[in-house]
């Protein structure tokens, strides 16, 4: 029999501790595949934020610096500035990057820091159990927006990719999603282009990846992709937003 698919070597285990139907492990797999394919492992430094993906560093065979909630872009700045030859990427959630750490990512992008910021946007604080983040869409039901996020009461969601793309230091910005096979393929393409932008020293790069969080969307795992398609994608359109 011909083997057509296997886990990347950089993934140390096939099991993970995240929920069934979660989109974050899919995104991780693509990231690690790409690092392997591009031969970057030996000089890769990942800076991880705090969210459900904080479980990943223990199963990734690359060097990881664990940052505090929201702080990964500043830590990655320190890393890249003292190790300019390293390939540096951050791994944050929407809660981590867009709520807690918005200032850090804005300034890092504006300075044109040469690392790749990856944000898993599931429009919710997953790890704490389903609360509103700055990326929760209007009408979305969370434990702190019971009955749906309301413009008057809870404010409007922030479109991080469009926000950061305006900044001169940002060289590459794209939004992808991992809820369909074609989406996964496109995610890998965007990540590839973002990594290239970093390796060519062009400036800051960001890939926003829409990920499923069935648990905190209060749907079954198989309903996650449809929820993403119907509720998130209209607000967060996929595509390359900036490429210098």
């Amino acid at each position, binding site marked *: 029999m011909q083997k057509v698919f296997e886990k990347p070597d950089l993934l140390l*285990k096939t099991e993970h501790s995240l929920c069934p139907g979660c989109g974050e492990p899919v995104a991780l797999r693509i990231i690690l595949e790409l690092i392997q394919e591009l031969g970057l492992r030996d000089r*890769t430094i990942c800076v991880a934020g705090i969210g459900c993906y904080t479980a990943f560093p223990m199963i990734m*065979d*690359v*060097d990881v*610096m664990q*940052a505090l909630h929201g702080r990964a872009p*500043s830590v990655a700045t*320190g890393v890249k500035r003292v190790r300019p030859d390293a390939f540096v990427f951050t791994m944050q959630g929407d809660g981590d990057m867009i709520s807690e750490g918005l200032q850090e990512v804005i*300034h890092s992008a504006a300075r044109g820091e040469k690392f790749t910021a990856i944000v898993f946007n599931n429009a919710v604080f997953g790890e704490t159990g389903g609360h509103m983040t700055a990326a929760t869409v209007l009408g979305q039901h969370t434990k702190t927006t019971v009955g749906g996020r309301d413009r008057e009461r809870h404010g409007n969601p922030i479109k991080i990719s469009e926000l950061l793309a305006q900044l001169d230091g940002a060289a590459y910005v794209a939004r992808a999603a991992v809820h369909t096979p074609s989406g996964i393929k496109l995610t890998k393409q965007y990540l590839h282009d973002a990594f290239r932008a970093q390796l060519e020293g062009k400036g800051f790069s960001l890939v926003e990846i829409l990920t499923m969080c069935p648990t905190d969307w209060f749907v079954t795992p198989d309903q996650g992709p449809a929820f993403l398609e119907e509720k998130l994608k209209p607000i967060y359109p996929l595509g390359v937003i900036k490429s210098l």
Partner: protein
Amino acid sequence: MEGSAAMAEAAVRAGCRFYAGYPITPSTEILEYMSTRMPQVGGVCMNAESEIEAIGMVWGAAGCGVRAMTASTGQGISLMQESFAELANAQIPVVTVNMCRGQGDYFQSTRGGGHGDYRFIVLAPSSAQEAADLAQLAFDLADKWRNPVMIMGDFLLSHTSEIVEFHETVAQRSADKSWAITGARGRRGITLSPLGPSEKLSTDIATTLAHAIDKHAAIKAEEVRVDTGYLDDAELVVVAFGFPGRFVKYAVMLARERGLRVGYVRPITLWPFPTQAVAAAAERAQAVAVFELNAGQMIEDVQLAVLGRAPVHAIGGISHDHSGFGVGPLLNVEYILKRIEEVYPKKGSRVQGNLGL
């Protein structure tokens, strides 16, 4: 050289190659100095957009094994507390300078406002020369213990120009950085985390945290530094630290000239606190006095050391002038001398078991 420039230059000579900071009086001069000096030695100085970002950047650089430093004042140090607590847990050696206004940040420096069971080694220089020496020592201690080190200074230390001689340090060359994040060439990847161990596939958080904390006892045993004088026959022992400690030394000399048997203890390490030196001095004396420019913070450590052997008097206080930088009217040798005379024990006045609270 001013104390702040002396510290910055000493840090560079100790091998510091990354600095990130945000301006605030009286620590701004360190940032100014580093912004021109760092590029000259191939280092990096970042104009961080906030103190929270400054300490994050320092975290990243130090986690890569580079000697890294930031400086601020109480207010900015307040913003860094979450990172401080977790840097200690992650056992990342960073050096921070807390150029305080007055000495109101003794608790902040020695206790910290962060969460959990962490400790910083805290050094308190009293002159530009000592600031330079301790800045170099700070990097060696941070590496030796893999624990953050803080230098607590103040407005006068930062801004007083004195002659400084730099001594070369050698310890940096032998510092073990095998734990640092470098990229996983030729080995399994590692995770440098305050949350758990660096071994992949392991979840043994308890052991790692215990390791970060177990060394506290060894640091206490090995790293106490203290300056003392005139203690042999002292009836009254005055405890003071930092730049005001120099004023106290001079006031003690003047008191001696007036025939008063006064001695002094000047803690150089605020943590670990020189508990034994204070206890031994109190054993022989009739009374202890604490001069500090705050509402009474170090006095608690002094009382814990004295443990009722002698009454402990507060002879300092909050000392602000209109500038708000905490120099103020109390930092005055005549005033200190007057207070020493007021609390100097009258014959046979020793009260056993009085904590002097």
